[in-house]
């Protein structure tokens, strides 16, 4: 099936009444959850998973994709209005968006953000449509060693790129794989670390980890910050009007940063957060008047906004074509696929074209919905920011508990949710990044399987990973992605010490 036929199949899914309805639900829910300061796309997707039980996979996944990019879209609203980013991918949006809001131009800032997001999203969906099938057809020939190396590279990339200490990120990743080893080993039937407890035989469901580590941990942070401001009723939004001159000013950054964002989204480890920061710095560097940045510059707002949305669609490239998530959020997205019995990867395009192309096509539709929804409805949607924090906290706790209970009907899992919530909170307090943990948890089982398959093929000879060029080069990239940032830090410290 070529891309053209594929897109026709995809639009049949996306433009059916069911498709349109679920894209719409997805983007609205995503936008609303993404707006809430503290709650990000990971929690949004995890909270929505139980709703999809019993749904057909195609509309369900189209909806989940909508939740994901809707959340990134919504994150910018609280960044601009409250200077409290809904998600980390919109931190850079606040640099110029919030000053604009303080100057009484909040409406204009929101409109610019919406247009830039729409542009970035659309450009990258077109690129996703071109790139994902090509990558799928290459990836079909990958053997277990290449897959293992690919996953290893994804894991090391996200560890080396997460904020803060690389050692702590690696510890989080190793701990994530350790948690996967709990349960019955699928290959030999050996019980590992179950202590004979029947509840642990199947290991932990990923939803327990995702909701615990993200939603419950976010609840803890919300409890601590519950007295922070929420939107007051009399805050003026100002006009939403964007002039032709504004459009001209933002066209440059929008076009450039859509591509930058897309490429960073495709690469493992990067994602919306890093993409938005890099785009912001990039535009500031090449700007003729960089002193305007940080004081309400239109360019400084448009750049990270188109970039973070482009990165979101870019992140679907490795997920759909290789079946390998490149970030914490796409790891949870992969979890959503697996819950619905769909294995993303090179075979998805041929086995389930309606899902592969349906998701891509739905993104066109979803981006248009987001633009229409956000421009006229911003003043009303922003009302959600005035939900009192205490009530929001109780409701998020309830959503998480219901979500976990409805997968297993097992109270033991609810206690485990509490345990992982406490762990997630401790990780935040002591600056251990959570995305490597969830990514390692999702990839861990697949990595172990690929490793053992490779060893079976080679009769236990580790040389299988270095004998052919593809696994070898991926392992080298994985190695250097860990070593180079460390070396750079070490060198800059030495320089500082010698000064």
């Amino acid at each position: 099936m070529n891309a053209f036929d594929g897109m026709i199949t995809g639009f049949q899914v996306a433009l059916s009444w069911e498709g349109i309805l679920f894209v719409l639900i997805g983007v609205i829910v995503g936008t609303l959850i993404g707006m809430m300061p503290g709650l990000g796309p990971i929690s949004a997707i995890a909270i929505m998973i139980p709703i999809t039980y019993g749904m057909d996979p195609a509309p369900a996944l189209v909806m989940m994709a909508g939740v994901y990019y809707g959340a990134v879209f919504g994150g910018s609203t609280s960044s601009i209005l409250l200077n409290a980013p809904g998600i980390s991918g919109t931190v850079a949006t606040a640099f110029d968006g919030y000053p604009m809001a303080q100057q009484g131009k909040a409406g204009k800032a929101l409109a610019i953000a919406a247009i830039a997001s729409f542009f970035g999203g659309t450009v990258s969906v077109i690129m996703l449509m071109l790139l994902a099938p090509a990558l799928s057809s290459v990836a079909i020939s990958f053997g277990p060693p290449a897959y293992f190396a690919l996953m290893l590279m994804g894991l090391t990339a996200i560890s080396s790129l997460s904020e803060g200490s690389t050692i702590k990120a690696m510890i989080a990743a190793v701990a994530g794989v350790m948690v996967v080893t709990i349960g019955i080993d699928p290959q030999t039937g050996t019980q590992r670390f179950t202590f004979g407890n029947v509840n642990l035989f199947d290991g932990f469901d990923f939803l327990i980890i995702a909701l615990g580590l993200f939603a419950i941990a976010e609840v803890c942070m919300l409890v601590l910050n519950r007295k922070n401001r929420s939107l007051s009723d009399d805050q003026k939004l100002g006009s939403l009007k964007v002039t032709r001159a504004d459009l001209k000013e933002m066209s440059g950054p929008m076009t450039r940063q859509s591509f930058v964002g897309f490429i960073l989204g495709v690469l493992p480890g990067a994602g919306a957060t890093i993409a938005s920061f890099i785009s912001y710095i990039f535009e500031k560097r090449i700007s003729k008047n960089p002193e305007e940045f940080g004081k309400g510059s239109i360019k400084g707002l448009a750049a990270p906004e188109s970039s973070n949305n482009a990165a979101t669609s870019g992140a679907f490239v490795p997920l759909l074509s290789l079946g390998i998530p490149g970030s914490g959020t796409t790891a949870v997205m992969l979890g959503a696929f697996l819950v619905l019995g769909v294995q993303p990867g090179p075979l998805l395009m041929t086995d389930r074209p309606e899902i592969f192309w349906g998701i891509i096509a739905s993104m066109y539709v979803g981006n248009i919905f987001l633009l229409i929804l956000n421009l006229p409805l911003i003043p009303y949607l922003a009302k959600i920011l005035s939900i009192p924090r205490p009530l929001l906290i109780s409701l998020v706790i309830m959503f998480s508990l219901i979500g976990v209970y409805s997968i297993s009907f097992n109270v033991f899992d609810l206690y485990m949710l509490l345990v992982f919530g406490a762990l997630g909170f401790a990780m935040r307090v002591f600056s251990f990044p959570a995305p490597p943990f969830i990514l390692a948890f999702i990839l861990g089982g697949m990595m172990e399987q690929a490793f053992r398959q490779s060893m079976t093929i080679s009769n236990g000879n580790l040389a299988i990973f270095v004998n052919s060029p593809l696994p070898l080069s991926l392992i080298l990239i994985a190695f250097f992605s860990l070593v180079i940032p460390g070396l750079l830090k070490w060198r800059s410290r030495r320089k500082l010490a010698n000064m």
Partner: protein
Amino acid sequence: MPLTINRRIALILFVIAAIYLFLSFQLPNYPYAPVDADVIPKGLGILMIILSVALFFSKAIETEAEKEKRNIPKKELLVLLAVFAMIFLYILLFEIIGFVIMTAIFIFFCSWFLGYTKWKSNIIVSILFPLGMYVIFVFALGISLPKGILPI
């Protein structure tokens, strides 16, 4: 060598890794697999020990932002513990008393405890949310939630 917070965490991690490694050496053997169930856990245990030693000797200094994150007043920590205790009680009782009643009680008291003083809207949300969720899950999605003592 002062015992900084990172060093203390490193020591805890070292102990966890050692226990994990000990347990992975207890795993039974399965003679016909080229890579047995214990290989990956052993590797992970060793990796974690190396990483915890690396964290212990790492020269990275805590940034101000990281210190700030760690700086939680005792009173707030107690509030957080109380919320956890409420969740614990909820889990303990909700299969017995039922989803709707327990959820309503939880939302009301948790919101009230955290400082939501508008008790009228609190009562309305506390009643409508569990009823709405119950209807969606039980009747629309076919996922049964414990009905407990309520005859619905």
